[in-house]
């Protein structure tokens, strides 16, 4: 698959912060940063949130692929710089305003950027770096993950003196072995694709140039399955996280009954 970047007549990148393309029940959501590393800004978080709502809300869409723009990287994570007004680091004021940004938490204190976990299957496709907020987004929003052999993953924020909520936002505590997750966050070291597969962060490692084709193929397989059944499975998983097993069983049984009834109609 060729580079997806668009350039204007002078060769400057034309930014569509979050790309959204639809083909045969499959939505491809693309993180398109200000450079090949695809750093994510607050505006992009908000746009990503809207795109995922759009995906979940369209009954014609069965599965999504989440990827970085271009063929080089998924995303190096949250940006540290102000891109719009020339180079410069984000100020303390920027960080504080980011916390209070209406796209971060709504008036009920629900986090709009972070708490939306798609109820439909999402496949992450990884080449190059997937760091910081890239990992957080992946833990939160993707359900199947295909990595290129040279992909690298890391919760590098602690190496920058940052962090405090990365694990909480990512949802990875429920996905990875404890010591593997603690290695990532306590050392801030990157791990390669094979290590990511070993700890269960990704499902498959394939040659770099086959990542997007493989993700698409998996998406096609998933898109063929009954969408409401998959949605019921994922909803059951998300809604029962904090329940005791008796309560969780009730939710699961109710969803199963609805799925069965729907099939008969």
């Amino acid at each position, binding site marked *: 698959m060729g580079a997806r970047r668009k350039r204007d007549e002078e060769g400057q990148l034309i930014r569509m912060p979050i790309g959204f393309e639809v083909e045969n029940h499959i939505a491809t959501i693309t993180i398109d940063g200000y450079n090949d590393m695809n750093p994510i800004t607050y505006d992009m978080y908000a746009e990503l949130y809207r795109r995922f709502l759009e995906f979940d809300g369209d009954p014609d869409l069965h599965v999504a692929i989440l990827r970085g723009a271009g063929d080089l990287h998924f995303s190096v994570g949250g940006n540290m710089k102000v891109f719009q007004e020339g180079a410069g680091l984000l100020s303390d004021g920027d960080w*504080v305003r980011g916390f209070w940004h209406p796209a971060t938490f709504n008036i009920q*204190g629900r986090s709009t950027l972070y708490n939306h976990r798609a109820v439909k299957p999402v496949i992450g496709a990884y080449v190059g770096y997937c760091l910081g907020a890239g990992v957080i987004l992946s833990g939160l929003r993707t359900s199947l993950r295909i990595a290129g052999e040279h992909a690298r993953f890391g919760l590098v924020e602690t190496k920058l003196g940052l962090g405090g909520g990365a694990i909480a936002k990512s949802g990875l505590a429920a996905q990875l*072995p404890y010591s593997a997750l603690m290695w990532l966050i306590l050392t801030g070291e990157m791990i390669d694709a094979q290590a990511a597969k070993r700890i269960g962060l990704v499902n498959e490692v394939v040659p770099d140039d086959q990542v997007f084709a493989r993700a698409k193929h998996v998406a096609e397989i998933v898109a063929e399955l009954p969408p409401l059944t998959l949605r019921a499975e994922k909803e059951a998983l998300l809604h029962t996280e904090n329940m005791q097993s008796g309560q969780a069983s009730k939710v699961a049984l109710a969803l199963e009954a609805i799925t069965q009834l729907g099939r008969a109609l």
Partner: protein
Amino acid sequence: MRLQSDTSNKDDQSRVRYRNDGNLALIEVCGLDTAANIIEPATIGKVSQLLSRFDDDPNLRVAVMSGLDPPDPVEENSKVSITELPPDGSNALDPIYRPVKPVVAAINGRCIEAGLILVGAVTDIRVAGRSATFGFGAELRSCLVGAAIRSRLNKQIPYVTLTWMALAGQECDAQEALRVGLINEIVADQEVWPRALAIAKQVAELALAPRAEKETLIGMEQAHYDDAVFYGSAVGLLNKLGSDAREGIAALNEKRSPEFRGR
């Protein structure tokens, strides 16, 4: 834990040695019964107390836990202070203290019963020697009932591995432990302690950020996702406004190594 200690004998009390080396706390435990290489359950209580002391000391950043008598390169360091704790009356069934600061485990030999409970319950990053094995022991003693839960391994490793150890009484070798994510790394037996120490120093250099992450994780364990994220974002922002974050971002920008001061 490293339970095969040549120096202990059957008359010894179950021992725990606690030393500080710079900003590291070094905790070494040794079993009472060298033949079976088993740590006394009461040792869990002692280690709990020491970890609480470690958390309270603002000069300490990371702890390393191992069996007694590791080949220790810091042994000759004159700044090292050694504390031998007297036996006390701590109950083996007391809740195990969970430190909010990072703890690295150095594991040699058999890591079973109370040793595995400690590794699961209080350590975050785990380095094991090639010959290490893991299990809860074939005949769980009555005081160790509930080991699968007390070790917190029910939340850390695949269910069937847990039942293999806790119900079938089997042991896993180091390779299997690595595969299921019980440990992070396998190294040659003699490299376990140096490697664990190196990792601890690396984490200690990052100062506050690893601790902030662990604090959110432990503190919000029972919370709903949204609430955990709200709290975690607040902690993250506080961290960002500290001088360490400023130093970290500046160092990234200037392409140099950061020097964190823990503020």
